[in-house]
């Protein structure tokens, strides 16, 4: 039983920045539910990084991941092509999304988080909910998964920071507007950068709308062994990898999460610079 984890399809969604990989991993595809993530490692000397499962295809035994090239490990991942194997791929991890039925669910996605949000939105759609997607990016070219979401979301609302497409402004503007006129909303889900998830939670709070956020804390093992991913939720310490990654947005300490995400900033830069230097030396 050897896991190949072959990349069957690679698509550069935003060249040099964001890519989508469809990976042959029937054992994970068979078990993965919306909200789950994987931990992967690209090289023998590589680190373990978590990535949300953006989609699954049980028939073909594949899972889809989408990543933003942000540092060394995602740069290494970006160097892989169709036909290459991912060295280590482990999952599905985390608790699946709690899919209750009976109304409208607004799924808000920002940046690469739109891909992760996509799987959750699809789950809510399949559970029988009316799903409204609100997606945002800095500019039109950085918007992901619009068409994929349109396949099952009757409404896909778009905002861009620079106004190049859709609403000129933030996703929270659209969300607020919607909550004011629609009382069938049973839940809001937000996946994206921490400030965006914090802003969404703040927006929904006065409406009392249950709000779920998918937290992207630093992880090592992803199976509850270490507590690197711990977050404070309602005053209690929780491990995002086993207790989450989805939590009640109204109870999450986003400030602490933001600080903890920056804990290795210097080392991340050092690692990336080291990688670039080595690559340059190789080319010489």
């Amino acid at each position, binding site marked *: 039983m050897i896991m190949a984890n072959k990349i069957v399809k690679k698509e550069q969604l935003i060249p040099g920045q964001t890519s989508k990989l469809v990976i042959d991993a029937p054992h994970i595809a068979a*078990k993965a539910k919306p909200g789950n993530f994987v931990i992967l490692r690209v090289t023998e*000397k590589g*680190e373990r990084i978590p990535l949300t499962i953006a989609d699954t295809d049980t028939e073909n035994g594949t899972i889809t991941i989408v990543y933003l090239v942000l540092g060394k490990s995602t740069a290494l991942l970006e160097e892989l092509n169709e036909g290459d194997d991912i060295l280590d791929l482990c999952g*599905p991890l985390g608790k699946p999304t709690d899919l209750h039925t009976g109304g409208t669910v607004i799924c808000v996605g920002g940046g690469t988080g739109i891909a992760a949000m996509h799987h959750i939105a699809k789950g809510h759609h399949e559970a029988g909910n009316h799903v409204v997607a609100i997606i945002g990016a800095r500019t039109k070219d950085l918007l992901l998964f619009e068409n994929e979401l349109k396949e099952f979301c009757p409404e896909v609302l778009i905002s861009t920071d620079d106004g190049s497409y859709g609403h000129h402004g933030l996703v929270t503007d659209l969300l607020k507007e919607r909550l004011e006129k629609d009382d069938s909303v049973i839940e809001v889900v937000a996946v994206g950068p921490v400030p965006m998830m914090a802003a969404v939670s703040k927006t929904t709070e006065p409406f009392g709308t249950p709000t779920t956020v998918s937290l992207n804390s630093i992880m090592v093992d992803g199976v509850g062994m270490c*507590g690197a991913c711990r977050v404070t939720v309602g005053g209690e310490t929780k491990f995002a990898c086993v207790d989450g990654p989805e939590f009640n947005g109204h109870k999450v300490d986003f400030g602490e999460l933001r600080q903890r995400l920056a804990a290795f900033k210097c080392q991340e830069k050092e690692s990336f610079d*080291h990688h670039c230097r080595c690559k340059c030396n190789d080319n010489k």
Partner: protein
Amino acid sequence: MTTSKKTKKQIAPRVPMPNQPADERSRNFKEVALGYTKEMAMEEASRCLNCKKPKCVQGCPVQVPIADFIAEVAKGDIEKAYAIIKSTNSLPAVCGRVCPQEIQCEGSCILSAKGEPVAIGRLERFVADEYMYMDACDLISAKPECPYIDEEKKVACIGSGPSSLTVAGYLASRGCKVTVFEALHEVGGVLVYGIPEFRLPKKDIVAKEVGALKDLQVDFVTNYVGGKTFSIEDLKAQGYKAIFVGVGAGLPRFLNIPGENFCGVFSANEYLTRVNLGRAYDFPNYDTPIIKGRKVTVYGGGNVAMDAARTAKRLGAESVHIVYRRTADAMPARHEEIEHAVEEGIILEVLANPIEFKGDENGNLTSVTLQKMTMGEPDESGRRRPLPLEGETYELETDLAVIAVGTRPNPVLLENEPDLKLNKWGYIEVNEETNETSIPDVYAGGDIVTGAATVILAMGAGRKAAQEIARRFGVED
């Protein structure tokens, strides 16, 4: 004439084992203890009285025929000695290094009453290291050729730590087809993520012991998480006739004090996993980063605390304090480990209990507030309880804190296997005779049954389960 008789009976001291000097070793991750030469081993082995009813064997959780193998070492027949050890112990190079022999085999040695016990651990280690390079089938089964593997006798081990590796070694050498499923990307459990390189080399020792099992046709599947990637039911459907659950305790305990989530506060599991499994000591050649503390504090008094403190020292910390609420002699760590730590310049900050971590505006740890303690009267258990000295607190500067106060049962498998009966502490309940769980043909052992214990106790549990599985398969000795 009585005096001369007494002199004759006096027991020779044990042969010391060479170590890397403290000031040198505290700057590298190479193994501290260097091991015996053959001459040293033979000399030490000759101290053994070769008791008719050896007590040392009873002290060993996997019942290595100690006197027999030592007799062979004394003669210089290391190959024979190895075969004898391997007949009951699948990881002798590991056990010789990390077992707390003073409370097991060596603690039971008859010589310990009058002087120093035979250095059984060092001898086991010497023998294992000498024969590490020999053909594995020869060694593990102690038989001239590899056993015939009966594909029908399918056994699955969940987790690849010491207990599972023992089950795998025992059953594979008796012709069973064993597959070991591991959640992480490397095999060995605590042997690879927990115990540091300077106590247990990964490439030269752990990987070779695992390699010997692979030669016995044990299959290892990594990145497979019990309860997530597969269930016990899935394994049964795949034809596994016996399943051993050895997933460890894993989940770390924290102190539950304010400021515990500041950057720079780590669980020992995270700190050691980054350094050992992720090889963060060689960052940026390896990608996993670690924060190299300048002023490090470690909380707890067990072996894990020693490992974390000595690791921090090797990563270049200016000062490393081990904060413990009782006195040093009450520390549960092995004496040898505490001694090694102190030799390396680690400070024991005893009778001190952390009550708060403080940080700067960016959320980085800057100091800890410690409560001074005193030892009270013995309680019902006979152990003296530490009591706070009211109002006596002090600050200790620290930019890296490592919490090593134990673990809890890992819920990942247990939550998804509701049929597995648990005890009141949340660990798996087993039949003490057989290590079978509430699910027929599913066995468990190691930390997931007992809570955090030692490598060798986990191996003992694995051996008990394996003996029962062998009996049911009709392949026992």
